[in-house]
C-alpha cells in the first residue's frame, strides 16, 4: 500500500469524476426517456437500471468480470482490438460507473418529471426544435434533479468498493482508490490509518456536497423569490 495520500486522493477523485462524466450523457438521456416515454417495457428497463443498486456489489463485480474476462463476450471483443480493461484504472472507472448509474438516472428522472411540459411547449412555439428546447428549457429546469443525481453518483463512485475490488483488483498506485485503501487498512487492523483516510474521504464528500450545493443554490435563487 502506498502512503502517498495525495496520489490516492487524486486518483480516486479523477476516477470518480471520469465515471460520473461518462455516465452523465447516457444517464441523463435514459432519465429523460423514462420520464417522458409512456410505452410498454418501461418497467423492465427501469428494473435493469436498478439492478446494480439491488444486487450485492460483489455480484455486480463478478458479472462484470465474467463479461470482461478472457472468455467473456465483451472480453473477447476487447481482446481482439487489443484493449485491456480488467485490472486497469479503466476497470475502476467502469465498476464505479455501473454502480453509480442507477443513482444518477433515478434522481435525474424525478427532476425531468417535475418540469412543466407547457414551458417546453412554449419554447417550441418560440422556434426551438425538440432538441434545442431540451437543452434550453428542460435540462436547466430539471437541473436540481440532475445535479443531485450526479452528486449521488459521484459520491457512490468515490466510495465504491465491492465491485471495484473484483474487476480492478486492489493494486496500489494503479487501481487502488481511497475506498480500497481504507478497506486494506481496516483489514490490517491499522485503524488509525484507516480513520485518517476516512477523514480525507469526508473532506472530499464535503467539497462535492458543497460544490453541488453552491450550484443548485445559485440556480435556485434565480428561480424562486
Amino acid at each position, binding site marked *: 500500500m502506498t502512503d502517498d495520500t495525495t496520489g490516492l486522493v487524486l486518483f480516486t477523485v479523477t476516477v470518480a469524476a471520469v465515471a460520473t462524466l461518462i455516465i452523465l450523457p447516457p444517464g441523463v438521456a435514459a432519465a429523460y426517456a423514462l420520464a417522458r416515454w409512456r410505452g410498454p417495457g418501461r418497467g423492465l428497463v427501469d428494473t435493469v437500471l436498478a439492478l446494480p443498486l439491488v444486487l450485492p456489489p460483489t455480484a455486480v463485480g*463478478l458479472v462484470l468480470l465474467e463479461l470482461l474476462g*478472457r472468455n467473456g463476450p465483451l472480453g473477447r471483443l476487447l481482446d481482439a482490438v487489443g484493449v485491456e480493461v480488467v*485490472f486497469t484504472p479503466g476497470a475502476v472507472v467502469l465498476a464505479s460507473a455501473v454502480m453509480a448509474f442507477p443513482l444518477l438516472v433515478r434522481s435525474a428522472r424525478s427532476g425531468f418529471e417535475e418540469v412543466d411540459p407547457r414551458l417546453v411547449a412554449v419554447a417550441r412555439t418560440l422556434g426551438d426544435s425538440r432538441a434545442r428546447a431540451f437543452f434550453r428549457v428542460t435540462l436547466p429546469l430539471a437541473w436540481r434533479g440532475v445535479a443531485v443525481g450526479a452528486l449521488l453518483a459521484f459520491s457512490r463512485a468515490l466510495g465504491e468498493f465491492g465491485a471495484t475490488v473484483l474487476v480492478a483488483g486492489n493494486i*496500489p498506485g494503479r487501481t487502488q482508490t481511497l475506498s480500497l485503501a481504507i478497506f486494506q487498512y481496516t483489514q490490517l487492523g491499522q485503524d488509525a490509518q484507516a480513520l485518517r483516510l476516512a477523514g480525507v474521504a469526508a473532506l472530499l464528500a464535503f467539497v462535492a456536497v458543497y460544490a453541488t450545493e453552491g450550484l443548485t443554490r445559485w440556480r435556485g435563487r434565480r428561480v424562486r423569490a
Partner: protein
Amino acid sequence: EEGLVFAAASTTDVLQELRPAFTKATGHSVVLALGSSGDLARQAMAGAPADAFLSADVARMEAVQKAGLVQPGTRVDLLSNRLVVVIPLDSKRKLVGPESLKGLKRLVLADPAIVPAGVYAKAWLEKAGLWKDLAPQVVPALDVRAALAAVEAGRVDAGVVYATDAAQSKKVRVAFEVPATDAPRIVYPVAALTKGKAPEVGLSFVRFLQSEPAKAAFRRHGFVVLAPDGGESAK
C-alpha cells in the same frame, strides 16, 4: 521490470516489508494486489495479468493450476499459520481448551462456509467433537479481520483467528493456541503464473520468498515457514 503479485490479504504486512528487499536483491519490482484468495483466483482465471499467486488455501491454487496458469514446477507450499482463540483484552474469562468454549454465548469465526480460516476452525472443532454443540453460538464473519474486529469491539466472547492476525491487535489477547496436531494443516501455496506481463519476475519473486531473509520476515510476523519438502521447518 515490474511484476504483478496476487497475494492473500493476510500476508499484506509482511509482503510490503519484503518488497523493497526484493527489488534490492533482483533489480525487479513487484506490485502487490491483495485480497481474498477466492477473489484473486477468480480474477487470475478471468485474465488478470498476474505473475505470481500466493494463496491462503490449497483449493484456490488447485483451481488456478487446473486452468493452466501455473508455470510448471514453480508451485511450493510456502507458509503455514496457526489458529488461536482470542478474547477481548479486558475479558475476565479463563479459556483453556476447546471444551471451555461450550460456556460461551457467542464465538466468532471467519465464515466457515467460505473463508479458509473459518473452514480450518470448523474442521478443528469437528475433530474435537464440539461442532454440533457450538454451531448455534457461532457467528460467521466476512473474513478473519471481521472476526477479529468483533472480538475487539467486545461484541462476542471469543473468536478463532490466525496467530498472525492476533499478533497485530492490541485489543485482544490469545486465550490459547490450537495445537498444530489438532487442526488441519493450514497451507499457503505460492506459484509463478504464465499469463502475466513479466512471468520471469513472478518466478524470481517466488524464489525470493523462499530465501532466508524472506523466511525470517515471515516468522517475525507469526507465520510458520514450511520446508520445501512440505514439512515444518524450525520456528
